[in-house]
């Protein structure tokens, strides 16, 4: 148990990322309120970006913009995770926008934000 806790402390960055991922995942799955689900989705995605970004970091090296005189790979952090996170952020924003507009339409139609009430109302309507 001690060894596990120590190991989690050395890997504190990915531990925090996984905890946030879990919080976001649970919120997305279990909350009834649509706005809270969208917030959970954003927390989950941000946690994944945190996970990716911390993987690229190497201690005592600088950002991947070419500086005069330092050409070797040993002077810079890994640029790949940053590129992946860029893509991920855009995807996250797009998905949030679509979910929010669906929420607006659903609220106008059913006057509630609880997904269970909406499902009940929908089933009650027939077709």
């Amino acid at each position, binding site marked *: 148990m001690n060894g596990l806790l120590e190991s989690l402390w*050395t890997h504190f960055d990915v531990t925090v990322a996984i905890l946030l991922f879990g919080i976001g995942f649970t919120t997305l799955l279990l909350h009834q309120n649509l706005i809270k689900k969208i917030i959970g989705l954003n927390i989950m995605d941000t946690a994944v970006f945190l996970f990716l970004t911390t993987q690229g970091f190497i201690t005592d090296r600088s950002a991947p*913009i070419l500086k005069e005189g330092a050409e070797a790979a040993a002077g810079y952090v890994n640029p790949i995770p940053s590129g992946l996170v860029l893509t991920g952020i855009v995807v996250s924003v797009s998905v949030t926008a679509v979910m929010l507009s669906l929420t607006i339409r659903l609220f106008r139609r059913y006057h509630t934000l609880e997904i269970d009430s909406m499902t009940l109302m929908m089933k009650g309507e027939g077709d």
Partner: protein
Amino acid sequence: MKKKIVDRLRQRYAGDQSPLDEDMISSLGEQPPELMRTSDEAYEALEHVHESRVWEAVRQERDMYQQIHKWSYSSGLRLIKRVYTTLAVLTCGGIILFLLWTVNMLPPFGNPNNPDNNEVAARYIEQGPEETGAVNMVAGMILDYRAFDTFGETTVLFVAACSVLFLLKLNDHKDGKPTSAWLEAEYDDRHHEPKNDQILQFAARLLVPIILLFGFYVIMNGHISPGGGFSGGAIMGAGLILYLNAFGFQKTERFFTYNTFRWITFGSLITYAGLKSYSFYTGANHLGSGISTGTPGALLSAGFILPLNICVGLVVMCTMYTFYTLIRKGGI
């Protein structure tokens, strides 16, 4: 008061084209449930009114609440809900603990000997500036080495913009007359948003040119310094949103309408697709690319990266602005 509202509504939906009364609309927005439950006359008077979405939804809501009220008190359903919730919570907890256990077996943080600091990263860093011409290695990577992913990402933005347009855009004119939905949206917007706020307008007059200029700088220098199309586009989009907030739709629609959005998005995406198709086709068929990369560090260098950054920046700017206006009013 209630009778007055009922009569006015009856008049209006019977074809009276007199403009909507602001008091009436605002009281409609707050009062209907009580109106429905206490005034049977109002309810009957409005039975034949099918146009108003508010009335229909409220009526249905009342029926459904009665149904839900009857249903949710059965103990069987409550038990099932409780079991499902417990199982779901346990599963999520289990997943988190399991992932935590796994994650401490991964390579440590910040270690230069990690498996992911390999020859791939080495080539991007060492030969990136001369092969792509971009001093910013991340820009070189996403717009030259792995350009297909960025193409997909821009498409995701486009899909999102189309979906939000699909859902929220109101049809503003039908047979030459403005639709009631459009009028209501305009009324809501004028009622709830600040109008001609002096402080906001003064700040916007100072800040919007600076923001747009800064965004333009970030886009143009994407291959030399940190930045690029995405960040620059978001900055410019924010500038446009500030302008809209300060000065209102009428002034903004002088230069940014739905058609502007369509043409800019179409132009940028087609340019991106065209440039990158040329690049992919020549690359796969082992033909030379014929585009010089210029001197690293100069503004006009890095092959296609500068035009691609501009395309991406324009798409992001238009999309951010479109999201805002569609969510606020339902029309650009």
